[in-house]
């Protein structure tokens, strides 16, 4: 074999290996770029604000064009073969041949001849014959492979993590509250009278329980539950008002005084027992005074209308007479029982609604739905202060507050779980008490008494001291803070005026100029 053939053969083998290595490098480089953009796309989709399309032609058309252009560019780079001069240069560099093969290839390709050229080519052929292309160009994995692997791991991580990061993550994909939890809630409603609202509440719970329910359906179910709870609260509040009025009427009757106290204390059970005693006493008394009819025997045997009206009617039945007719008592007891059941219904409905909301809110920490989807919106917070008459407030948290304050029992059960300020998982309940805090006058002001001189006090000055109002410590501290905060602005304003220097800096400026002139004199 001629020297030139040997050299060209070896260079060809080295060139092929170099080409394979470069092709792999380019391919993995392209994979790195692709993974990089996929990761960026994934992360962008996770934090994407609403209004920017994530799919569709506006997105995929330029993306597809960019990908096509990039793939074409990569294909072009890979298709470029390694030329023999390049292979010679690489072989010289890697094997420290000092341009031997490069020079020999040039002489061979340009057909130059001279004794020295021939000798050089012969020597280069001998050197090339000793070269092993596998040693000159070892088959190591390209560096871009490791980068691609790292990006691949990162992509897998982001793919797993991104949905959970996204505020727009489909809530329906979130795991639903456990079946057992939902069954517990429905069990609370089982022994309740199945009126329309309980049926509706049960339907809402069933919707929440279904795994195939969409986010919209769940949202509507929560809204229904909230409406039912509000309605129940209103009816319970009306019942309480009726009970309060009834208690006032009953106080006028000595026989019913204790019953009134029990009702006012919220202890319906005790009130019922006391009424049972009163009925027994009334029955016994009737037996002793056999045949005497009570003047109000013509009272209606059954009251009509809603609970509040029934309570009012019971109050009318009991007013004006020390003797209580049996029908009136019966009606009263029925009405009280109904009121107790109404308030029990309120407890249960609120408990169900609160627990269901807790379950959904806990899993919806990662959901796409804003908080107001579950019925509470910070911006829509109404007056959190409970009504002094009914004890009701507009906010759910206030109802919690109201519930806790009106139905306080010694043994706390699940209905009383959580703090009085509301559920830990919800946002609105906690705002009921801490939102618009209004301070009483005496909290804002501190009363100080000073000794009057040469004056005799009036009605409110019995001990000879006058009353003045001074700022409380809180007010004084806030004033100090305002003063400190304003001082910086004052300094800035004065400093901005060219002909004035802030007072605190005047001495420093004065010293500076004095020293400046001193150094000039020197």
């Amino acid at each position, binding site marked *: 074999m001629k020297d030139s053939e040997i050299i060209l053969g070896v260079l060809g083998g080295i060139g092929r290996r170099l080409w394979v290595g470069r092709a792999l490098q380019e391919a993995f480089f392209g994979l790195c770029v692709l993974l990089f953009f996929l990761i960026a796309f994934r992360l962008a989709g996770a934090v994407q604000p609403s209004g920017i399309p994530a799919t569709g032609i506006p997105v995929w058309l330029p993306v597809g064009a960019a990908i096509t252009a990039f793939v074409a560019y990569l294909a072009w780079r890979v298709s470029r073969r390694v030329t023999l*001069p*390049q292979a010679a240069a690489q072989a010289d560099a890697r094997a420290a041949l*000092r341009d031997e093969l*490069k*020079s020999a290839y040039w002489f061979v390709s340009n057909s130059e001849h001279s*004794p*020295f050229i*021939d000798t050089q080519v012969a020597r280069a052929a001998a050197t090339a014959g000793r070269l092993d292309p596998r040693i000159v160009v070892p088959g190591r994995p390209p560096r871009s492979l490791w980068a691609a692997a790292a990006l691949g791991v990162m992509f897998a991580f982001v793919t797993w993590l991104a949905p959970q990061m996204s505020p727009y993550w489909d809530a329906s994909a979130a795991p639903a509250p456990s079946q057992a939890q939902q069954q517990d809630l429905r069990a609370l409603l089982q022994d309740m009278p199945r009126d329309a609202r309980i049926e509706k509440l049960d339907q809402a719970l069933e919707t929440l329980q279904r795994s195939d329910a969409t986010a919209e359906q769940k949202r509507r179910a929560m809204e229904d539950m909230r409406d039912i709870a509000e309605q129940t609260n209103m009816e319970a509040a009306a019942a309480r008002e009726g009970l309060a009025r009834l208690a006032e009427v009953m106080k006028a009757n000595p026989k019913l005084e204790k019953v009134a106290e029990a009702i006012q204390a919220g202890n319906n059970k005790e009130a019922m027992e006391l009424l049972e005693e009163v009925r027994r006493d009334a029955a016994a008394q009737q037996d002793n005074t056999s045949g005497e009819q009570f003047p109000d025997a013509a009272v209606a045997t059954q009251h009509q209308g809603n609970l509040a009206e029934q309570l009012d009617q019971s109050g009318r039945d009991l007013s004006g007479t020390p003797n209580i007719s049996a029908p009136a008592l019966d009606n009263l007891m029925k009405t009280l029982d109904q009121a107790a059941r109404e308030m029990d219904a309120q407890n249960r409905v609120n408990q169900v609604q609160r627990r269901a909301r807790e379950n959904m809110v806990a899993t919806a920490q990662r959901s796409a739905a804003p908080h107001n989807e579950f019925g509470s919106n910070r911006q829509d917070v109404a007056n959190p202060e409970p009504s002094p008459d009914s004890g009701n407030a507009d906010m759910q948290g206030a109802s919690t507050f109201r519930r806790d304050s009106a139905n306080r029992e010694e043994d706390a059960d699940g209905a009383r779980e959580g703090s009085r300020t509301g559920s830990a998982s919800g946002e609105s309940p906690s705002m009921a008490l801490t939102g618009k805090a209004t301070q009483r006058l005496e909290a804002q002001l501190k009363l100080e008494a000073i000794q009057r001189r040469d004056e005799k006090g009036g009605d409110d000055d019995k001990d000879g001291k006058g009353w003045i109002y001074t700022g409380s410590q809180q007010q004084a501290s806030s004033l100090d803070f305002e003063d400190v905060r304003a001082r910086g602005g004052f300094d800035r304003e004065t400093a901005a005026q060219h002909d004035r220097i802030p007072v605190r800096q005047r001495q420093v400026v004065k010293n500076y100029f004095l020293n400046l002139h001193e150094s000039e004199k020197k």
Partner: protein
Amino acid sequence: MNTVVDRQIQVFREQFVSVREEISRIIVGNDDIVSGVMTCLLARGHVLLEGIPGVGKTKLVQTMADVLDLKFSRIQFTPDLMPGDIIGTNIVREDESGRKNFEFQHGPIFANMVLADEINRATPKTQSALLEAMQENSVSAAGSTHALEQPFFVLATQNPIEMEGTYPLPEAQMDRFFFKLRLDFPDVEQLHLIIDRTTREKEPAVKRVLQQGQILEMRDTARAIPVARPVQEYAIKITLATHPESVQGHEMTKKYVRFGSSPRGSQALILGAKVHALMNDRVHVSCEDVRAVTLPALRHRILLNFEAEAGRVDADTILQRILDWVPEPKE
């Protein structure tokens, strides 16, 4: 394998090494200077030696003249030296018949190896007489041209310290020197050797190891070494990098250089690289050979501007940056 060429190369290396070893018996250190001088001799160039007094410039040339079987002459340049003192002059001779005629008396330049000591002390007119002979390899006097015997090799020395009362060589004249070599002050070990060799009863002597004909053959051998185009392009890129107006000029060149190297610089690079390749038993010139001779070949061909002088930037620094910057050919 071409045995003739291999034999030529082998002989070249052996003779080169023998000369270097023989010179090293007298001259301590400065192996690269000796190699540089030999390179110039074999590349048909001339050398400008620069160094402080007493570092062995004259001794080196004298030793080389002893080792090489060449006619040696020394010219001490002084301000009153005339061109005729270098090249020779016509004198009037009377023959037996009483007829008078002019006879050209050869000057000291008519030697194989000429040492022009402190060339910067002579006037420009005298300098030009020498430089013309260096360029033309001949001397013109009284209307006739006298060829100089080959090999004709000039080693000029220059004292960089005493510049007062001197006539620094103009850049155009500096360009005629193939290499500019700098002799550094010897280190401690070298000083010990110098003292040991020169302060004893007998100083070591050298023997002649190379004949005139052999030097001419070595010159031919060096010129026959082939250079591939990519390597030649590399040498050209280095030369162009010294030009501030060139697009291939280095940024330091554009900042500190007034004029770059002439084409003689490229010639010096290639010829010097050829000898360097032969010295390393190679039949081809590589980029490494070009880099090895860049500094001595180009340092005296670059004219620096005032900013370089003010910033104490010398030509070697610029050339080193250029070498680091110009990439080797990839194909």
